[in-house]
């Protein structure tokens, strides 16, 4: 069996592995018993450009319904893009079909949020891990497979005895380790981890976060980590993208994003995260956003954030959608891109913060779709549950 890892040596770390261009994923809202009318769309991902470099961890943050999970799934071709392309290693994965697509999947794996529902309760750990290897033709020699299984378990910090056990016999943190081992079993290049620690207890989260970091160092993996917890994302990511209502609003190197958040939404998000430090909690300034996230089936015109933005200006914000661009702000580096018309003026203090009146945002009323948003509630379809 040829070692699949040898193919990776020709690729340099830092190359673009995944190139997302103008990606849109819209879900139709259907109505009617006999005629399946489409009465609207949920604009889950609406125009995203994103590059993942080989060997980096890219963190995608945002609140529920912002489309972050859908974007992660679209990169793995688990959602069909409505528009735009996803190039994986230079190849457009949306154009792949059948056997070629199945083979390609060996290189991109996913770790899910809830390890209890993503592991088959009736399969032992051994069969869970071997299944993927067999599907990709990596299970040719019994002894080699067995050695590989032990290696995998060791990599994720489980005892060899775990092979004979079933998912229910493990704790939440251990189950997540099994999920990670399963993703690793086919020796992928890219792993998309969708909320990998949010179902875990606080004291166990750190174990899994440390494990992800170790694995990256050891196997040179590329990670896309999708999470709502800003502190978690900042801890493990090299670069971070902040999403709001289907679009990226800011992208930056992780440290810089915390030191110099520029987009009004990022600033509000940062200041909303509670910090376990009473002194800091008492003294820091909070930017409280009013109102709720608008429904992704009826996104606001212009800048999506203008309905809640404390820096909203009378011109441009309401009718012109800002593009992600490199900004001219002291201290901001080349890779720091922000989608805001007024970011320079806000950073220099020329534009002042003002009060925003909360607007009523329904949670989606199934009987009046055109009037009151999507029947899926505040989250996009993929993010429920």
């Amino acid at each position: 069996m040829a070692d699949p890892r040898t193919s990776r040596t020709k690729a340099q770390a830092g190359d673009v592995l995944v190139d997302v261009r103008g990606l849109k994923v819209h879900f139709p809202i259907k109505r009617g018993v006999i005629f399946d009318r489409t009465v609207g769309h949920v604009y889950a991902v609406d125009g995203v450009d994103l590059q993942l470099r080989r060997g980096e961890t890219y963190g995608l943050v945002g609140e529920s319904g912002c489309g972050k999970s859908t974007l992660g799934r679209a990169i793995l071709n688990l959602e069909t893009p409505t528009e735009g392309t996803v190039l994986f290693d230079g190849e457009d994965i949306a154009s792949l079909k059948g056997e070629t697509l199945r083979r390609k999947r060996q290189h991109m794996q996913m770790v899910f949020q809830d390890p209890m529902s993503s592991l088959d309760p009736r399969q032992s750990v051994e069969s869970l891990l071997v299944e993927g290897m067999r599907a990709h033709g990596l299970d040719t020699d019994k002894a080699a497979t067995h050695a590989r299984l032990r290696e995998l378990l060791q990599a994720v910090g489980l005892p060899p005895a775990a092979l004979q056990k079933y998912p229910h016999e493990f704790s939440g943190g251990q189950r997540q380790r099994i999920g990670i081992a399963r993703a690793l079993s086919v020796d992928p290049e890219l792993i998309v981890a969708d909320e990998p620690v949010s179902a875990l207890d606080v004291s166990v989260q750190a174990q899994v976060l440390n494990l992800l970091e170790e694995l990256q160092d050891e196997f040179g993996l590329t990670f896309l980590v999708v999470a709502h917890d800003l502190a978690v994302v900042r801890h493990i990511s090299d670069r971070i993208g902040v999403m709001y209502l289907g679009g990226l609003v800011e992208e930056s190197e992780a440290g810089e994003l915390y030191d110099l958040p520029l987009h009004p939404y990022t600033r509000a998000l940062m200041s909303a995260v509670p910090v376990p430090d009473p002194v800091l909690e008492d003294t820091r300034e909070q930017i409280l956003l009013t109102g709720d996230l608008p429904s992704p089936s009826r996104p606001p015109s212009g800048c999506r954030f203008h309905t809640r933005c404390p820096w909203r200006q009378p011109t441009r914000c309401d009718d012109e959608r800002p593009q992600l661009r490199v900004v001219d702000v002291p201290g901001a580096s080349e890779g720091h891109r922000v989608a805001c018309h007024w970011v320079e003026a806000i950073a220099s203090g020329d534009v002042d913060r003002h009060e925003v009146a909360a607007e009523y945002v329904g949670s989606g009323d199934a009987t009046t779709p055109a009037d009151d948003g999507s029947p899926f509630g505040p989250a996009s379809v993929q993010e429920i549950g």
Partner: protein
Amino acid sequence: MSATMSLKDDATPSTGPLLSVEDLRVTFQRHGEKPFTAVDGVSFDVHPGQTVGLVGESGCGKSVTSLALMGLLPKRGNRVEGRATYEGTDLLSLSDKEMRDRRGRDIAMIFQDPLSSLNPVVSIGIQVTEVMERHQGMSRKDAMPRARDLLERVGIPDPNARLKNYPHQLSGGMRQRALIAMALACEPRLLIADEPTTALDVTIQAQILALLKELVQDTGTALIMITHDLGVVAGLCDEVNVLYAGRIVERGDRHRLFARPRHPYTHGLLSSIPRLDSPRGEKLTPITGSVSDNLPWTSACAFAPRCSHALDVCRQESPPWEWESDGRGLRCFNPVDPEEVRRG
């Protein structure tokens, strides 16, 4: 509105505790199974106007404590022992009928998931007025304007229209606000909030926490805040109780507790969570094992199997509750040396 929500004159801390929980013990016993003690001798006081935090991971007994106090545990299959004295009466000894008269009037509760705690087929307005009709004998006609005021008070936009809405028409944050409005309808002196923001997004969480903080200050209501999030506690609570496997392991004023955690569990929790303001690249120090790796409290320290400070004695004897000189309570044989603490 301002008159009804104003600071109550009896909300002075000198009057002694509003609620005093002593040696609360909740044991679940299913037929033919070994009894399981979910809450194992928990004691704490809540003074008028004070915010007390109960922090811990899943299974530490924090929610069972609140349900026991509210008399909401099922009657069969469990045993509640101890005392919970609220203004001279022991809540745990009250009959169902007496408890119903107090619930919502003297003590109100906010739950984690607002959608499952609101009635889906009754409009918001009726759900809020219901409380006032039941406890204050108001007619629905009189109560409706007050319900409107309450919705406005908790920051719900366009309250007149919202009175006629049903829970599914509101967003998660709005539902939680409606639930808070219901809890405040009879101006309770004690509010119990069980993970009130866990189901919400972080920007909405910030709004709800700011609202709770403001309400506590304005009305003098005492608040018991139950959460797993140490960040939430740090900004809100006067006194923090850290629970592990059904017992309080450390208690202290929030400033002292966060600056110098003494119990290895508190210390471990604080160093295992990634913080937004810590330098990047710093490795997290996880607590090994999982919540289920416990020893029984009766013969050992339950945390000993996961503790980096464990001594032999920790596995052989149950650590007693002791008060430190700085007013902090601690249940540990070998507490963390203050010098060792990462953030001093």
